[in-house]
Structure formats: structure tokens, C-alpha cells
């Protein structure tokens, strides 16, 4: 067995432990963030060095292929941006800075494992490592709202895990194996396609994973948790946690339940339609920007699920590409919000009035990201929607794409409303909004990504295609 295959995860875990120990024995706490970000270079380098391998370890439970490596690099970049943007926020939990960075890194380790397991029990363990870290991070502010959010996330997350385990138990009971590839063979060999028990298992799996990606009707936790959690954690939840959920769903449903794709394709199509509609319609009524982005992320999960409903390689590669675009866009929006709400100490959209005059660059970045979320060219959001919609049409889901296009129009209303408040509203004061160099670096990186993917998407698209092509045998 080749331990080198696990090197990105091992080095990331070691980094988290180093951060904990540094926090205990060192007084210069500002170094912790620096160490966390710089240290991420090591797992990232291992991940890049492994690119091109296609091997399994631990009896087939761990698989290192371009799909998992792509997601590993994705999670590392996201966590680096989140840590950079946390530097302006960390003063709110100054006594627990070391724990904060360490737990962020541990959550990332869990996500990286989620992307590279091919066995139900390992998937569950990785999912719990991620989940428990995120429950702690959600309650990190220790005020009323944050604690409530943490508790709510923990309780609903526990229920979702239980449902997921039921689903896994049913699939295991029917096929007699927890390895995804063997499940697929057993389903075809034993003619289980018409079995209602398998359908039940699929439905329970969709419910369990649907919680992770915040699909309707498992989205109840999203607005409260997003509002209560520290803003960098909200950004992390809305991007990395969702992406990890989609990575696992792609792996499980394409590799294990591929033969039953007619069943789950339809389930995902219906959920996608409901999710995007509910997310967008409810987002219109929000006055808190974190809540609004929470509902917007529910709607985006709906668009993403078109890629699942398509149940084709085009669909999965469009989904992976969409995830990258969505990550840059949403992270950019949240990083701008961190800087602004740090100054004005409010998340109300009304308080953002005239922000363009107080913080021209931050406002420009926020506006760019909101335009990208709405899907207007020349931004990443437009390209992402274009590809995922055409994947849907390729698979004959014209009705779903029509619903999605109508939704895009609805969504443009509430995204552009914020842009209007920022640019045309009267400023509430003349004070400038300060931001640290780290945060500005993270924000410019995200905005450059949004523009670059909107103008020249081919390279990332090609990599996404390579990654997605790993999924089908």
C-alpha cells in the first residue's frame, strides 16, 4: 500500500496539529493565520504532484484520481481564501484564534477525504469529520445567535446523518457490499433495479446528502445557520461544504447507483426545480444580506442539481465547472461583506446604502460578484449557467431548463436590488471602510477568478471535463 497517496491529507492534518501547538506555546497570535495559509502550500504541492495518478489504497476504500485531486485542490484554495479573509474577523474570538484555524483545517481534511473515498463507511466517517468541525465553527462567536445556529445545525445534521445511515444500510443490505463499484455490479447482477427497497435506499441517500447541499426540503437550517455563524464560516459553509456534498453525491450516484440513474435522475430533477424556485422566491423578501445569500445559495444548489438530473458526463463536468465559478463568486461576495459589516456592524441591506462612496473598491467587488450570481455576462456565473443549462437540454430536460431560466430572471431582481442600494442610495455616513491587506488580496483573487472564468473559461472547463470523466467506469 502506498502511503504517498494520502500525503495531502496527512500533511494538512499535521498542519492543523502544528497550529494547535503553536497557539499553546507562542504569544504572537497573528502568526497563526500566516502559518495556516503558508502551510497550505505543502498539501497543495502534494496534490498537484499526484495529478495524473489513478490508484486505490486501503482495499479500494481510498481512490486517488483526477476527480478527487481536483476537488482536493479546490478545497485547499477555498480554505486559503477563507483564512485570509478571517484576519479582519478574528478579533471577535481573539481568545480562540488557534482553535479556529485548526478546526477550519480539520474540516478541510474531512472534505478532501470525502472527495476521495469510494466506500460507504469511509464516506460516512469523512462526512462526520467535516460535519462536527463545522458545527463547532458555527457556534464560534458564542453569542445568542451563533450558539442557536450551532445547536440547530448540530441537531438537524445529526438527523440527516441518521437518515443517510439508514439509506446506506438499505443499500448494503440489498447488495452485501459497501464498495461503490461492487454495489453497481451487484445491482445489475441481481436485478435489483425494480426493487422498492433499493428505491427507498436511494431516497434516503438523497435526503441525507440533500442536507449537506441544502436542497429543498432539507434547507430549513440554511438561513438561521448562515445568519448566526461567523461570516467567514458562512462563506466556507456555502462554498466548500456544498462542494464536498456534490463531490460525494457524484461519486455515490454515478459509481454505485449508475444502473438506477433513471430513478435518481428524476428525483434530482424534481428537487432541483423546487429548490431553485423556493430559494429565489424567498430570497426576495430578505432584508439581511447574509440571509439573502443563504437563500441564494439554496437556489444555486438547485441550478447545480440540473447537472445531477442530467445523469451524463456532460452534466457532471458542467456541475464541476459550475462549482468552481460559484466558489469564486460566493467567496468574493462574502469577503466583501466581511469587510463592510466589520465597519458598520450590521448585516442589514438597508445599511449598505451608498456604500459605493464609502468603499468604492469593495462595493465594485461586491457588485461584480452579485452580477455573477445573477448570471449576467461577462462573469463566471453566466458561463456556469450556460454550460449547466446546455447539459440539461442535452439530456432532454427542457422543462427543467425553462424553469431555471425563469428563476434566473427572478433572481436578477434581488441581486440587482442590492447593487442599486449600494450605488444609488444615500450614504448613511462619510466614514471610509478599512480592510486589511490579506482580505484585499483574497478579494482581488476571487474577483479575478470571476472575470477570468467569465471571459476565458476553456482551461478550467477542460480540467473539469477530465475530472468528471473519471467517474464512469
Amino acid at each position, binding site marked *: 500500500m502506498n502511503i504517498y497517496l494520502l500525503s495531502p491529507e496527512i500533511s494538512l492534518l499535521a498542519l492543523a*496539529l502544528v497550529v*494547535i501547538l503553536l497557539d*499553546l*506555546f507562542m504569544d504572537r497570535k497573528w502568526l497563526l493565520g500566516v502559518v495556516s495559509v503558508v502551510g497550505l502550500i505543502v498539501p497543495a504541492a502534494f496534490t498537484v504532484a499526484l495529478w495524473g495518478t489513478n490508484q486505490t489504497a486501503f482495499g479500494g476504500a481510498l481512490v486517488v484520481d483526477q476527480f478527487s485531486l481536483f476537488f482536493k485542490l479546490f478545497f485547499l484554495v477555498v480554505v486559503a481564501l477563507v483564512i485570509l479573509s478571517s484576519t479582519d474577523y478574528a478579533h471577535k474570538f481573539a481568545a480562540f484564534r488557534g482553535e479556529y484555524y485548526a478546526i477550519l483545517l480539520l474540516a478541510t481534511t474531512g472534505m478532501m477525504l470525502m472527495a476521495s473515498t469510494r466506500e460507504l463507511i469511509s464516506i460516512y466517517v469523512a462526512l462526520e469529520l467535516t460535519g462536527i468541525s463545522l458545527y463547532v465553527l458555527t457556534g464560534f462567536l458564542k453569542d445568542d445567535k451563533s450558539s442557536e445556529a450551532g445547536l440547530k445545525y448540530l441537531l438537524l445534521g445529526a438527523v440527516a446523518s441518521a437518515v443517510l445511515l439508514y439509506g446506506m444500510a438499505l443499500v448494503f*443490505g*440489498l*447488495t*452485501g457490499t459497501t464498495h461503490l463499484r461492487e454495489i453497481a455490479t451487484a445491482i445489475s447482477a441481481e436485478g435489483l433495479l425494480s426493487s422498492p*427497497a433499493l428505491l427507498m435506499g436511494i431516497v434516503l441517500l438523497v435526503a441525507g446528502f440533500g442536507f449537506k447541499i441544502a436542497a429543498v426540503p432539507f434547507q430549513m437550517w440554511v438561513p438561521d445557520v448562515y445568519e448566526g455563524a461567523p461570516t467567514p464560516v458562512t462563506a466556507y459553509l456555502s462554498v466548500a461544504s456544498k462542494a464536498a456534498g456534490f463531490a460525494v453525491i457524484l461519486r455515490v450516484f454515478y459509481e454505485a447507483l449508475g444502473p438506477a440513474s433513471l430513478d435518481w435522475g428524476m428525483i434530482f430533477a424534481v428537487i432541483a426545480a423546487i429548490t431553485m424556485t423556493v430559494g429565489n422566491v424567498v430570497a426576495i423578501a430578505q432584508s439581511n444580506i447574509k440571509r439573502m445569500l443563504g437563500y441564494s445559495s439554496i437556489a444555486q444548489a438547485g441550478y447545480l442539481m440540473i447537472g445531477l438530473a442530467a445523469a451524463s458526463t456532460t452534466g457532471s463536468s458542467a456541475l464541476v465547472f459550475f462549482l468552481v465559478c460559484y466558489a469564486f463568486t460566493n467567496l468574493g461576495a462574502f469577503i466583501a461583506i466581511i469587510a463592510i459589516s466589520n465597519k458598520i456592524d450590521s448585516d442589514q441591506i438597508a445599511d449598505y446604502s451608498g456604500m459605493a462612496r464609502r468603499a468604492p473598491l469593495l462595493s465594485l467587488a461586491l457588485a461584480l460578484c452579485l452580477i455573477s450570481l445573477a448570471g449576467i455576462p461577462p462573469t463566471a456565473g453566466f458561463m456556469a449557467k450556460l454550460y449547466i443549462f446546455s447539459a440539461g437540454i442535452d439530456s432532454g430536460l427542457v422543462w427543467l431548463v425553462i424553469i431555471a431560466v425563469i428563476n434566473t430572471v427572478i433572481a436578477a431582481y434581488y441581486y440587482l436590488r442590492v447593487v442599486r442600494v449600494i450605488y444609488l442610495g444615500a450614504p448613511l455616513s462619510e466614514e471610509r471602510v478599512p480592510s486589511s491587506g490579506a482580505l484585499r488580496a483574497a478579494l482581488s483573487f476571487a474577483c479575478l477568478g470571476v472575470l477570468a472564468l467569465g471571459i476565458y473559461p476553456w482551461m478550467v472547463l477542460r480540467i473539469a471535463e477530465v475530472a468528471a470523466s473519471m467517474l464512469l467506469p
Partner: protein
Amino acid sequence: MLGNFGYIGIFLLAAIGFAASTILIPVTLRFLGVVPRKPNPTKYTTYECGMETVGKSWVRFNFRYYFFALLFVVFDIQVVFLYPWAVHFNQLRLFGLVEMLAFVLILLVGFVYAWRKGVLQWK
């Protein structure tokens, strides 16, 4: 494989039947008049292994027990994994030793954390 669910079904029925009958037997006997009903204050007190009950059950526990419980869990897990490792030490050889060292080191960070945060002091 599907047939194996039948066994689970039998267990399920037995479990439901057991729970239902243990609840229903006293109710039925009471209904038939077999069980006399003679309440007195002693009968209504909380049963505590034959001891006389002392005070209320809503007492406050010292919060520090919580830390000790957490540390205990960590030690517990460590022993749970160390025991089978020790039994198979000869087959696992160097790889097993290195792996166990890595495991203990990770847990050690947890203990160092608890120690530096002052959890081990009973103030």
C-alpha cells in the same frame, strides 16, 4: 440478500411485542382486579436501589466533571485501539508500530492542549 431482512423483521416484531406486552400486562391485571391498589407516600417516592432517597434530583453538578469526562473518552478510545494492536503486534511489525505512534502523537496533542488550557488543575 433480501431474505436476510426477514430476520430483522422477526427481531423487530419481537421487540415491539415485548414492549407492548410489558406495558399491557399490568394494565390488564389492574383491569381484571387482580392487582390491589393501595397507594401510600412511600410507594410514590423515587426508587433508588433500595436506598432512601436524599434530596432532589435537580442538583447542580460541578462543571469540571465535564472536562474529565471528555478526557476520559480520549483515554478510552486510545485503550480500545491499543489493545488489539498489542495482541497482533508480532504480525503488524514496524508498520504497525509507526502507525500506532502516529495515532498516539495525534492524541497527545489533545492532552497537551488540555494541559496548557489548565483543565488538569482542580482549582
